[in-house]
């Protein structure tokens, strides 16, 4: 607003980004893309004609001979290569398509085009479809096979890897620690084991007793998106699982989506999925299904991360180098999760390569990253350290302005992890995160904030059917403001920290039931604020009362595969949140004035809120390619983030429930329809939801955020409702992959004392929200990507008139959030060039252009007297980013 006033960090970053060289690089990139986008091949390999005669030749040999005859190469895995199937071909000038169709008709193999090659794949469903059932097996009884699935190259456990029985409906997937357990009838089975980014394996087993089977999958050397994604089995588990409202992202997908300044970001990428919406530029928050930003539980290796944003929201605290896997539950969380209304974002860190030592990293426009991992004892234990730091502030030093060249503006974070395999049944993990943002002017005034988390986990396998994980977790978030004015020094600190114990158990009962149950106890300590002042301001150093709470929960949930087509998960989470002393608790009247107070001693229980939270989900598979699901979940939330600034701020307050602040409750009902299209190349998802919210908290009009009065004097309470429909179509196979997601939704609040006690739109109410993501593998060297987003502007409050007080203009407001920011739209482009790739070393260059057509999206709109004509008032739009190019160099050895 002011032309030469406060420190303008964005103005400092801007010139850097606008440097000519980046523009030149960008033009080069566009040029290259244009040149190489002409059609590369004219004919599909499947259309090539071939003349060949083979009689009862083993599959691999037959394929080799077909290659010799047609010039077309075949791609296949071990299961195909070692197949003892023998095929016969008599072809004269026939297309390869016809030849293969005939030759493979009787066998469980399918073929698809893959660039210029043909991919031959084992496919159990094919035979099932054609009616060739499994051989009858005389052996009786049921046994359990269990174990851990890992990557052969890195030793990393594979989360969500699937284990299925060929020709059968039974299957399971690994849990968050790579453990699976599957109960099958005695006899011979073919297990098909697959995971994203790994080669699918077929393992023949003969079950005569319970069995342990640890499986190491090979990385898919081709690193083709196509293969990695078809790893999700056809007509597979996703359609069968009752879990809905879940989104899973692998780090590979995240790394292909273009982002601001080239820093790949989990939190920014999930905002492209249906039902998950960005809280806007300059905000690290996101909205899930009409919920507020504080209603998302962010877990990093099970530890709560209270503030997931760096640099006031431009980047998230999750360094994608250190992340293995991300699962997002949009309100239908399994019973093991609780504590937030809208979503759980469960992020698991890499364990560290236990096979070989490796270093990877990257250098970008504003940050550098380094990741080191390796075995401590090969195959048994490993470590990982991943760090990054921004260096934009180095450029501040060049400024002539002393105020700027003595400024600091950076963040850094470190992820570290070690794990030990203690025999066949036990595994120990230690992981931690430490991050800090520093923002200061003139070396004296500033703010720094950061998260610290530490997790100690112990996996124990009691037996084939019984898996347990015990975790001890610490998390901490704090900030410190330092301020010097004249002779006065102020220091303000605030902090929230948790000690957390968690016990999760999974028990495969057999008989199509599997149980999960557990306990969770968290001890929260919240120090809302402490101010120390020296000088002559008269401000008395003081400390707001620390708040303590004991947050306990127990849960049990059963997944029952009732039939081949119908499965049901039902469970209950019981949460008990106890507000503890020492402290003084108040009663407040309708005007926010304190009426009485009561002091509680240390450890004394002020109030306990017990909430049963039922969770039910059911899935019915209609046929091999489609299913319907329905679910209901209740969630309770006892920690509330109180904020009234538009972008959200590191100083927003976390407040625990008190005698007056009741637990927030949400009941969500949803139904969904899922269908695979075009032979499983496309995946279509539609979900609709209705959510009822209780005990929502908001600031009073004119609330004082900086007060030493109890926070309840500034708050009002009410309810909310949110409903919507989410659609996504995803292309999983081919050179072009990506998705289109669209959400139509409504989110409203009704709070006593706001908007004349009428329903009003929540700020995050977005009617339309559209995202398109496309990733195109041009050739071996280049991968291009683009994403486009469009959404209805936030619901905001604009003036409906103006008046003067003391000769100065002020504005009249009538309806809360009755207006809209202009609609938002943006296109981002990205390109990755593989530079060098050997077995030992690989490197790549990533270019990105954020907001490629430079749309001036409104960050906010404010109102003021017209600068040129003081007799008029004007509306002013602020824009943050137009055309932000970036370049990042990544390496790995």
């Amino acid at each position, binding site marked *: 607003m*002011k032309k030469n*006033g406060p420190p303008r960090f964005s103005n400092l970053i801007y010139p850097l980004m606008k440097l000519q060289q980046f523009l030149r690089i960008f033009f080069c990139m566009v040029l290259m893309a244009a040149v190489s986008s002409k059609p590369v091949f004219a004919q599909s390999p499947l259309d090539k004609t071939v003349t060949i005669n083979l009689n009862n030749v083993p599959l691999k040999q037959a394929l080799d001979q077909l290659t010799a005859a047609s010039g077309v190469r075949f791609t296949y895995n071990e299961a195909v290569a070692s197949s003892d199937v023998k095929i016969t071909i008599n072809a004269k000038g026939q297309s390869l398509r016809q030849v293969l169709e005939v030759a493979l008709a009787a066998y469980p193999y399918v073929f698809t085009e893959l660039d210029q090659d043909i991919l031959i794949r084992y496919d159990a469903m094919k035979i099932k479809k054609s009616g060739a059932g499994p051989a009858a097996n005389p052996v009786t009884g049921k046994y359990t096979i269990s174990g851990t699935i890992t990557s052969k190259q890195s030793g990393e456990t594979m989360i969500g890897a699937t284990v299925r029985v060929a020709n059968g409906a039974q299957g399971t997937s690994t849990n968050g620690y790579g453990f699976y357990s599957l109960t099958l009838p005695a006899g011979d089975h073919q297990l098909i084991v697959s995971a994203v980014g790994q080669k699918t394996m077929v393992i023949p087993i003969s079950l005569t007793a319970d069995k342990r089977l640890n499986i190491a999958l090979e990385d898919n050397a081709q690193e083709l998106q196509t293969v990695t994604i078809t790893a999700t089995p056809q007509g597979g588990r996703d359609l069968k699982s009752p879990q809905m409202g879940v989104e899973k992202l692998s780090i590979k997908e995240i790394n292909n989506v273009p982002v601001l300044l080239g820093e790949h970001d989990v939190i920014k990428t999930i905002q492209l999925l249906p039902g998950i919406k960005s809280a806007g530029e300059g905000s690290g928050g996101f909205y899930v299904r009409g919920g507020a930003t504080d209603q998302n539980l962010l877990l990093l290796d099970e530890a709560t991360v209270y503030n997931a944003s760096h640099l006031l929201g431009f980047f998230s605290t999750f360094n994608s180098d250190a992340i293995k896997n991300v699962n997002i539950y949009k309100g239908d969380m399994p019973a093991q999760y609780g504590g937030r209304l809208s979503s759980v974002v469960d992020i698991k860190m890499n364990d560290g390569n236990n096979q070989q030592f490796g270093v990877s990293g990257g250098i970008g426009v504003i940050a550098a990253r380094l990741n080191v991992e390796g075995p401590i004892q090969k195959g048994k234990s490993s470590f990982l350290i991943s760090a990054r730091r921004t260096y934009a502030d180095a450029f501040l030093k060049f400024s002539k302005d002393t105020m700027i060249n003595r400024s600091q503006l950076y963040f850094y974070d470190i992820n570290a992890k070690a794990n030990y395999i203690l025999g066949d049944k036990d595994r120990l993990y230690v992981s931690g995160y430490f991050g800090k943002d520093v923002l200061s002017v003139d070396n004296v005034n500033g703010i720094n904030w950061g998260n610290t988390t530490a997790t100690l986990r112990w996996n124990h396998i009691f037996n084939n059917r019984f898996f347990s994980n015990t975790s001890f977790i610490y998390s901490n978030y704090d900030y410190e403001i330092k301020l010097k*004015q004249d002779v006065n020094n102020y220091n303000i600190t605030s902090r929230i920290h948790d000690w957390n114990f968690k016990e999760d158990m999974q028990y495969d009962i057999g008989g199509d039931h599997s149980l999960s149950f557990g306990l969770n106890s968290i001890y929260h300590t919240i120090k809302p604020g402490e101010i120390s002042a020296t000088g002559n*301001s008269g401000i008395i150093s003081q400390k707001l009362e620390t708040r303590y709470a004991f947050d306990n929960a127990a849960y049990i949930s059963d997944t029952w595969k009732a039939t081949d087509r119908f499965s049901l998960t039902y469970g209950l989470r019981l949460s008990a949140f106890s507000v503890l002393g020492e402290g003084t608790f108040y009663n407040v009247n309708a005007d926010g004035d304190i009426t009485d107070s009561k002091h509680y001693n240390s450890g004394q229980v002020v109030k306990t809120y017990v909430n049963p939270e039922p969770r039910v989900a059911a899935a019915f598979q209609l046929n091999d390619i489609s299913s319907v699901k329905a679910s209901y979940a209740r969630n309770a939330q006892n920690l509330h983030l109180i904020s009234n*600034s538009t972008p959200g701020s590191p100083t927003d307050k976390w407040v625990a429930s008190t005698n007056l602040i009741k637990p927030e409750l949400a009941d969500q009902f949803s139904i969904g329809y899922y269908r695979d299209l075009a032979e499983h190349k496309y995946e279509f998802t539609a979900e609709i939801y209705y959510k009822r919210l209780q005990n929502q908290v908001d600031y009073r009009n004119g609330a004082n955020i900086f007060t030493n009065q109890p926070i309840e004097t500034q708050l009002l309470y009410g309810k909310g409702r949110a409903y919507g429909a989410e659609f996504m179509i995803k292309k999983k196979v081919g050179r072009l992959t990506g998705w289109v997601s669209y959400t139509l939704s409504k989110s409203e609040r009704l709070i006593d004392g706001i908007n004349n006690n009428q329903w009003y739109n929540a700020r995050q109410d977005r009617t339309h929200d559209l995202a398109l993501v496309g990733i195109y593998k041009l050739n071996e060297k280049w991968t291009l990507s683009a994403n486009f987003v469009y959404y209805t502007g936030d619901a905001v409050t604009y003036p409906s008139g103006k*008046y003067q007080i003391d000769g100065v203009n002020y504005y009249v407001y*009538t*309806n809360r959030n009755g207006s809209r920011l202009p609609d938002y739209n943006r296109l981002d482009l990205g390109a990755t060039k593989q530079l060098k790739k050997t077995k030992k070393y690989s490197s790549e260059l990533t270019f990105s252009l954020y907001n490629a057509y430079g749309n001036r999206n409104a960050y*906010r709109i404010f109102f003021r007297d017209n600068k040129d004509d003081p007799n008029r008032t004007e509306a002013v739009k602020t824009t943050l980013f137009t055309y932000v190019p970036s370049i990042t160099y990544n390496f790995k050895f």
Partner: protein
Amino acid sequence: MHTIRFFAFLLLLGLFSSCEKAIDLKLDNSAPQYVIEGTVTDETGGAKVLISQSKNFTDDNSFVGISGARVTVESDGNVYQFDATGSGVYQNLALKGIPGHTYNLTVKLDGKTYTSVSTMPQPVALDSIYVVDDEFSNNKDKTKQRLATVKYTDPAGIQNYYRFIQYIDNIKEKTIFVDEDEFTNGQTVNSRLNFNNDNDAPTREIRTGKQLTVEMECIDKAVYKYFYSLTNGASGDGNNAAPSNPQSNITGGVLGYFSAYSITRKTITVPAN
């Protein structure tokens, strides 16, 4: 605490101010509402009520007074009639308020009655005023912006609320400066009057040789809340996620406030830097 608030504001402002553009925005218009600004001070001539009306956002900034109102203030059983002395200006020159006394305002207008009550706090002496450099901001010509600082001793044991009005060469600064003793009860306070010269007006700059006057008003709690919420919620600056009309201490559904306050003031000539 307002210094700290101001700092947080500057920090955010600095980070996020990048590209500004005036735009045409279609705004809803609400029906005009009456605005009452009523004061009673411990000085002669301080008993004054201004009545005006709100306008549409797109209208110009000339606000005409509303005449035809019947304005009275009652205190200790005495009723003071206010006479119309100009367009929308109502005054009673005889009413000089006394600290500690309570004043009841009644405005009758268009068949409706608006009432308010305000108690004049005891005056607190303004010890001195002086000028300091602002660490963060520059004037348009790149010289350091200078700011006024007020020094006073807050009375212990009671809640005090203050409003400061700053004049540079008799031109009133439009920023609202309010403070309370929540964190400074009973202390000697040096408080800086931070403001943002957002239109780079030279008349708002504190420069050597100019006359600086600060008027310190001791106001009651309701009036403090009014001005606090006015400046935080209704100034249009876009920082508040939920702007709203301030909490008026006048009943009956009008905009504005009624304040009985006591005054102390100081004037200095701004010394060389």
